[in-house]
């Protein structure tokens, strides 16, 4: 925390902070309209693809009886993975009293909400009978890992939304009191959502207390959400999935994907909303170190996951591993391992690469590799069941997503980007009151009516 500032200084710097951090809301140009237009177009194409899939059946995808889980499931696992960053940054690091990560909390929560919401949608889009979704509630069997997944995904979404919303309330009051140049309806939304915030000690105490509870609650939920997702695979008898380390393996991989996603969003905000003084070199440097750390943990699990069965080469494990190391999936496998894990670890050891732009590029690479990592986890295993695949057409034996499937896959990404964009357009991307507090501005100035209004 900086030194306590004088009243004039406080008011002035609060004005500046407010102006900077509400730029994402007030700033409107062709570029943002174009961006939203593109996203909405892609989303419409995705919905259209989904309608075709409903009408004609899941057969419009590349999936068949042997590879019966395809890229949709890989996509689902990817989004669940990305969403885990919310709990790492805004809860774990917070509870460890780490200061630098505080301004990143809200970005992490945006990413978490968008990703987990899309994960939920994607899994419905993968169902053969989405019209029977209610059966899960009417006839739910709690012995099925799908029920566990459903429970923790919804719980995680609720807690993430609350963790986004609670620290937003004082900001909403600021927006209600100070923001100009936005439509009346938007102001009304702020007024309603601010819940009549007055900014007295009692209210701050309540918010801090509630947040603390949520931050602790989200740790077991966050860990469960991806552990249970990994159990969808680990609970089967298939080579490549039938392993006991899948829980921590998935969780550590999730942090890699999520950290990369948050870095990318931070970089874009920094550029688009001119937040150079808020998402500083220091933040990127620290995120770079965090990425190296989580990559190292993930590397450790990867070595366990591949070296131990690779040493034994038991019949079915052997077939699976040969396919990954030197077979049809070797290019994808080595790309994932090298570009998504070894290269980032190596590069990010140098301070030069922990600057914003190199970090952005490396994160992009890591995120792409993370997606393919899930693909490489899901599909090769399904292509090699215990018994030979015979008496079926050739396209049953090898899986490749169809174009119809790809537009639905893209819908996941587009949907997540739309959610993130809307959240950034409606709410400050960094908590104003917390940032002001960190800058040594007393809370009492937050509730003052600004002079120039």
């Amino acid at each position: 925390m900086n030194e306590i500032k004088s009243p004039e200084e406080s008011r002035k710097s609060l004005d500046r902070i407010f102006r900077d951090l509400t730029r994402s809301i007030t700033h409107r140009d062709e570029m943002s309209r174009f961006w939203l237009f593109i996203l909405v177009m892609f989303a419409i194409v995705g919905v259209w693809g989904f309608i075709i899939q409903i009408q004609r059946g899941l057969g419009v995808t590349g999936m068949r009886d042997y590879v019966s889980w395809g890229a949709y499931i890989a996509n689902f696992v990817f989004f669940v993975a990305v969403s885990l960053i919310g709990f790492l940054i805004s809860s774990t690091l917070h509870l460890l009293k780490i200061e630098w990560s505080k301004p990143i909390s809200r970005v992490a929560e945006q990413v978490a909400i968008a990703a987990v919401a899309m994960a939920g949608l994607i899994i419905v889009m993968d169902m053969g009978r989405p019209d029977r979704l209610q059966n899960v509630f009417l006839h739910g069997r709690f012995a099925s890992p799908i029920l566990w997944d459903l429970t923790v995904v919804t719980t995680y979404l609720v807690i993430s939304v609350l963790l986004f919303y609670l620290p937003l309330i004082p900001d909403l009051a600021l927006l209600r009191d100070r923001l100009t140049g936005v439509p009346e309806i938007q102001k009304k939304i702020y007024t309603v959502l601010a819940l009549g915030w007055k900014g007295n000690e009692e209210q701050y105490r309540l918010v801090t207390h509630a947040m603390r509870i949520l931050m602790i609650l989200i740790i077991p939920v966050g860990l469960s959400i991806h552990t249970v997702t990994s159990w969808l695979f680990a609970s089967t008898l298939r080579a490549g999935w039938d392993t006991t380390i899948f829980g921590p393996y998935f969780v550590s991989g999730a942090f890699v994907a999520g950290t990369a996603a948050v870095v990318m969003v931070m970089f874009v905000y920094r550029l688009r909303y001119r937040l150079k003084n808020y998402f500083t070199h220091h933040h990127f440097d620290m995120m770079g170190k965090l990425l190296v750390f989580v990559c190292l943990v993930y590397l450790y699990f990867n070595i366990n996951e591949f070296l131990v069965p690779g040493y034994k080469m038991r019949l079915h494990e052997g077939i699976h591993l040969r396919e990954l190391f030197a077979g049809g999936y070797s290019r994808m496998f080595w790309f994932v391992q090298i570009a998504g894990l070894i290269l980032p670890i190596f590069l990010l050891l140098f301070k030069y690469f922990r600057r914003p732009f190199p970090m952005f590029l490396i994160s992009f690479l890591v995120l792409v590799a993370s997606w393919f990592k899930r693909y490489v986890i899901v599909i090769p295993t399904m292509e090699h069941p215990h018994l030979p695949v015979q008496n079926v057409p050739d396209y049953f034996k090898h899986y490749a997503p169809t174009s119809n499937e790809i537009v639905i896959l893209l819908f996941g990404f587009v949907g997540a980007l739309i959610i993130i964009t809307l959240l950034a357009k409606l709410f400050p991307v960094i908590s104003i009151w917390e940032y002001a507090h960190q800058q040594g501005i007393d809370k009492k100035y937050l509730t003052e009516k600004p002079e120039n209004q």
Partner: protein
Amino acid sequence: MEQNYNTRRSFLKSLGVTLGVAGLGVSSGVLTSCSKVSSVSPEGKIRLLTPGGTLVEVDASQLTPAEMPSLTDNQKRGRLGMEGKSWVMVIDLSKCRNARQCMAACQNHHQLRPEQHHINVLQMQDAEHTAPYYMPKPCMHCDNPPCTKVCPVNATFKRADGIVLIDNERCIGCRFCIAACPYSARVFNWFEPRDAEKYEGVTYNIEANVPQKKGTISKCLFSADLLRDGKLPSCVSACPNSVYWFGDRNEDAVTNGTTKETVSFSKLIRDNGAYTLMEELGTKPRVYYLPPKNRTFPFEGELIEKGHQG
């Protein structure tokens, strides 16, 4: 001959007739299909096909509407299973010559597309220098079924008589059971099922899983509907080479589908060194295999996937 038998039976199936003689005045949908097997003669007599396969003439005035099992009754009965029974199958690999009559009969009975197999005759070779053989592979109806464990909605379940069934009125199509099954016994209806228009409006029979439904799972059910009628499963009676034995473990009796000979189940599996498929997985299959020894015919298949045999 086999073919005729199956066509006739599936006719009756589509009529929804399980017991007794099909009658008039049930519903318009049934009547249309009735015309395929029955015709009204000028004297007011009606020709009908009995489930036994004989054509009979009955006075039209004597007819009473047959009881159509309602969907709810069907579902309830199908979930309970047949009391006191414990169905088992024994497959004699030394007899299988890859005739594939079982596959044809099964696809016919369960209205499957050509690429959908409830039973699949695989060409197997256990290790590099061991003899290849044909292995019919139905659902193992495991006593510790990995598939029913993972079902989120109890759409696939284990009955008291040992059969693992599917309820495609409830299945949500998540395909977790396909992922969980180590025997690749399950298939999915990726598109509208075969002859979907033809069977539209026909009451769903859970014990045969017909009509099939788009977006749901299907699998071998030991022809539970035929068992209820005191018959052998379609694949078992279709086999020309005496490969299949089927029966009740509680009675310790299995019947050969080709010769109709009935023997002691325990003696059969003891004398022939029977085994179950991948018993190391702990799934406890109800399908027993007799090893492919003393075969009097050559293996004519070609091994499709070298180095990938179970």
